[in-house]
C-alpha cells in the first residue's frame, strides 16, 4: 500500500479571503473594523462641523458656573447661588434616594406578593395574580401620573386640618399628616447622649452576630443546634432600652404641627417624591413577585420531600433547603430589576421631581445650552450605576453558582 502523498498546498488566491474559513474570520473583522471606524469618524466629523456652524465648543466649564435655579428637595445644602455641578450632584443624590427607597419597598412587597401567589388559598392567589398582571401590563409612566393625581387631588389641603372640628385628621396619634402638599412624618431629634445610645445599640448587634456565628460553628461541629433567636432579641432590646432611660431619653420625636396654612417641622415628603417612589416600587414589586415565585417553583418537589423524609420540620426545610437554592435563582434577576427601577426613576420629570435628569439633563441643559456635554455626563452617570450593578451580579454569580466540574 502506498502512503498517499500529502495534499499539495494550494497557492493563495484573493477569493480565499471570503470563501476559506481560515481567513474569512479575519477578513470579516477587518471589514467590520474599517466600517466601524469610518462611521465613528463620520459622526465625529459631523458633530465638529455642526458645532462650528452653531459657534459652540465642547467644554465642561459650565459645571463651575452659578446655577441660578432652585431645587425644592435637596439632601445636601444647595441654593440658587451654587454651581451647576452641585445642582447635578443634588440631582444624583435625589435619584439614588428614590432608587434606594423604591428598591427596599419593591423587595418587601414583591416577596410578600410572590409568596402569597403560591398560597393554597384560591382567593388570595387569584387576587395576587390580578395585582401582578395589573401592574405589569400598564406602563409605569401611567402609574406615576395616576398615583401623583391620587396624592394631590384626593388628599385634604392643610387648612382642612384646622379648627375645633376639622374635616381631616392626622393619622397614628396625630403624628402623620397626609395633605395635598405632601406627607409629614415625625422627625427624630438626636439630643445629648444619643451617641452613647447608638454605640450601645451597635455593640449589642455585634455581640449578637458573634453569638450566632459561634452557634453555627457549634452546630456544624456537634450537630446540636443552639437556640439563638430569643437570646438575640433580648440582647438587642434590653441594653438599648436600659440606656435609653438611663441617659434620660436622648432621642425624641418632633411632631409636625399646623401653623398658618401649612405644616411645620417633622419630615416633609413631597408628593412628587412619594408618587415616584410608590409607583416605581409597586410596578417593580410585580416583577419581583414573579421572580420570587419562579425561584421557589424552580426547586423541584423532590428536594422538599427528601428533606421531609430526613425528618426536617417545615420551617427548617424552607430555611435550610428551599431558600438557599431558590435565592441562587432569584438574586441575579432581582438585582437587574433594581437596575431597571433606577433607570425608570428618570421618569421623575413627569411629576416634577428633581432627579439628575431634571437638574443636569433638564434645567442646566436648557439654561446653558450645552446639550452634548450634559447628555454625555448624564449617560455617564447612568452607565456607571449600571456597570456597578452588573458587576455585583457577576460577582454574585461567580461566588454562589453551583460548581459543576
Amino acid at each position, binding site marked *: 500500500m502506498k502512503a498517499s502523498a500529502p495534499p499539495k498546498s494550494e497557492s493563495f488566491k484573493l477569493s480565499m479571503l471570503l470563501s476559506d474559513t481560515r481567513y474569512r*474570520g479575519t477578513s470579516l473583522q477587518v471589514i467590520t473594523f474599517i466600517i466601524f471606524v469610518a462611521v465613528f469618524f463620520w459622526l465625529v466629523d459631523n458633530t465638529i462641523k*455642526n458645532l462650528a456652524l452653531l459657534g459652540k465648543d465642547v467644554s465642561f466649564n459650565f459645571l463651575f458656573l452659578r446655577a441660578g435655579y432652585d431645587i425644592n428637595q435637596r439632601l445636601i445644602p444647595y441654593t440658587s447661588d451654587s454651581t451647576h455641578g452641585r445642582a447635578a450632584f443634588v440631582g444624583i443624590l435625589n435619584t439614588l434616594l428614590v432608587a434606594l427607597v423604591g428598591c427596599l419597598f419593591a423587595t418587601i412587597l414583591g416577596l410578600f406578593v410572590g409568596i402569597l401567589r403560591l398560597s*393554597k388559598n384560591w382567593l388570595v392567589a387569584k387576587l395576587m395574580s390580578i395585582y401582578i398582571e395589573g401592574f405589569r*401590563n400598564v406602563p409605569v409612566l401611567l402609574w406615576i401620573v395616576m398615583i401623583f393625581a391620587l396624592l394631590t387631588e384626593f388628599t385634604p389641603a392643610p387648612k382642612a386640618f384646622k379648627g375645633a372640628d376639622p374635616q381631616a385628621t392626622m393619622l397614628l396619634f396625630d403624628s402623620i399628616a397626609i395633605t395635598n402638599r405632601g406627607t409629614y412624618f415625625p422627625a427624630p431629634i438626636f439630643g445629648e447622649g444619643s451617641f452613647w445610645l447608638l454605640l450601645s445599640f451597635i455593640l449589642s448587634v455585634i455581640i449578637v452576630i458573634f453569638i450566632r456565628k459561634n452557634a453555627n460553628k457549634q452546630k456544624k461541629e456537634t450537630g446540636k443546634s443552639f437556640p439563638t433567636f430569643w437570646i438575640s432579641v433580648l440582647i438587642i432590646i434590653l441594653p438599648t432600652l436600659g440606656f435609653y432611660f438611663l441617659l434620660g431619653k436622648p432621642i425624641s420625636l418632633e411632631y409636625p404641627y399646623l401653623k398658618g396654612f401649612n405644616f411645620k417641622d417633622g419630615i416633609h415628603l413631597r408628593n412628587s417624591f412619594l408618587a415616584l417612589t410608590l409607583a416605581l416600587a409597586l410596578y417593580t414589586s410585580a416583577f419581583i413577585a414573579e421572580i420570587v415565585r419562579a425561584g421557589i417553583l424552580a426547586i423541584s418537589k423532590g428536594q422538599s420531600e427528601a428533606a421531609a423524609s430526613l425528618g426536617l420540620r417545615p420551617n427548617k426545610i424552607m430555611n435550610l433547603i428551599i431558600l438557599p437554592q431558590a435565592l441562587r435563582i432569584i438574586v441575579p434577576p432581582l438585582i437587574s430589576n433594581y437596575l431597571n427601577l433606577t433607570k425608570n426613576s428618570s421618569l421623575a420629570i413627569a411629576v416634577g421631581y428633581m432627579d439628575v435628569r431634571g437638574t443636569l439633563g433638564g434645567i442646566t441643559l436648557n439654561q446653558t445650552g450645552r446639550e452634548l456635554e450634559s447628555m454625555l455626563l448624564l449617560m455617564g452617570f447612568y452607565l456607571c450605576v449600571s456597570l456597578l450593578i452588573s458587576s455585583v451580579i457577576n460577582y454574585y454569580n461567580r461566588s454562589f453558582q453551583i460548581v459543576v466540574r
Partner: protein
Amino acid sequence: MSKIAFVQKNKIPPSPAPISEVGVIGWLKQNLFSSWFNTLLTLLSIYFIFIILKDFIPWAWGGHWDTKSLRECLDLNPDVACFSVLTARWKQLLFGLYPAEEYWRPTVTFILLIFSIIPILFPKYFRFFWFSIIYPGLAIWLLWGGSIWSVGIVYIGFFLGVLLFILLLRNITKNMVITGISSILFVILFFIFFSNYLVKNLDIIIPISLPPVESLKMGGFTLSLIVGITGIVASFPIGILLALGRQSNLPIIKMICVGFIEFIRGVPLITLLFVASVLLNYFLPPGTNFDIVLRVIIMVTLFSAAYMAEVIRGGLAGLPLGQHEASSSLGLTYWQSQRLVIMPQALKISIPGIVNTFIGLFKDTTLVSIISLRDPVGLASTIRADQTWNGIYWELYVAIGLMFFVVCFGMSQYSQYLERKLKTDK
C-alpha cells in the same frame, strides 16, 4: 367452608363522599377554609375586595356618558364617573391630531394589521404570509399618504434584486457570495439612479395617491401602535444578530456588540429619546432633518434590540454545548447550524423573555410623551388642559390603562400558548 360464618356475596355499592368533602362545599373547604390561617386570609381578601368594589361599582356603573363638560357632570352627580370625556374625545385618544376626514386610513391600517399578523401567529394560515410582507409598505402608505409608488418602488427594487439573484444562481454561477454581492449592488444602483425616474413616470401613468399627513399629526393609540409594532418587528432580527455577535469568537465583532449592548442597556430609554430629539442633529451632516417619529422608532428599536440580544443570549447559553458540536460534526456551516439547530431551540427557550421585551417596548412607547409627542398619556394632559375637562383624572387614566392592558395581556397570553404548543419534552 362451613367454618366461615359470613361471606359477603355481592358488592356493596360505594357510598357517596360526605357532602362536606365534594362539590361546592368541598371546594370551598379545601381552597378557602382549610386552616384558621387560611380562613383569616380569605376573610381579609373578601373584605379587601368589598371595600374596593363598594366605591368602584357605583362610580363606574352610574357614570355619565353624554354631558358636555366636567362642570355639567359635577352638577348632575359629583360621586360618579364622568365618561363623557371619552365620548367627546375618544377619536383624539385613538388617532391624535390625524385629520378627521382621514380617520378611515388608520382604521383600515389596524384592521389589515390583524390580518397580517395572523399568518405569523398561527402557522395554520402560513400560506397567507405574502400579505404580511406587503403589509408594512401598505401601512406606511395608508398612514403617511402621498403617492403609492414612493413606497411601492422599494418593493419593486427588492423584487428585482431577488429575481436577479435567483436568475444568476440558476444560470450563471453557483457562488453565493458573488451572486449576493452583485444583486445587492444592483439594488443599490437601482435606488440611486432609476427609482426617482420610475416613480415620476409611474405616477403619471397610474396616479394613485392619498393626501399626505405629517408625522406630528399622528398621536394617540395610533402612535403607540406605530412605534411599538415597528420597534418589535425591527428589533427582533437585530437582537438575534447582536446575540450571535456577542457569542462569536471574532474578538472585534464581539467587542462592538458587547459595547453596544452594554451601553444601550446602561442608560434609560428616556435619555436615548432625548438624544433622538435634541442631539441627533449634531451627529448627522449639517442641514439634515428627518422625521421625529422615525427617529423615535430608531431609538426604541435599538433600545429593545439590546434587551432582546441579552434574552436570546440567555437562550443560547441554555443550550448544551453538544448541540453546537453535533451540528458542526454533521458538516453544517455556521449559518446552517444556527438556522436549523441552534436558533430554533434557543428561541424556544427564550420565548417568555422575548415576549416580555416586546411588552416592555410597547409600554415604553408612552415615554414619547416626555419629548412632547402626543401618545395617549401625552394626550391625557392635553385634554386636561382644556377648559371643559380641566380636573378630570381617573376616567382618562383608566381608559388608557385599559387599552395598554388589553394589548400587553394579550401578548403574554399568546406567549404562554406558544410555549405550550412548542413544548416537546414531557
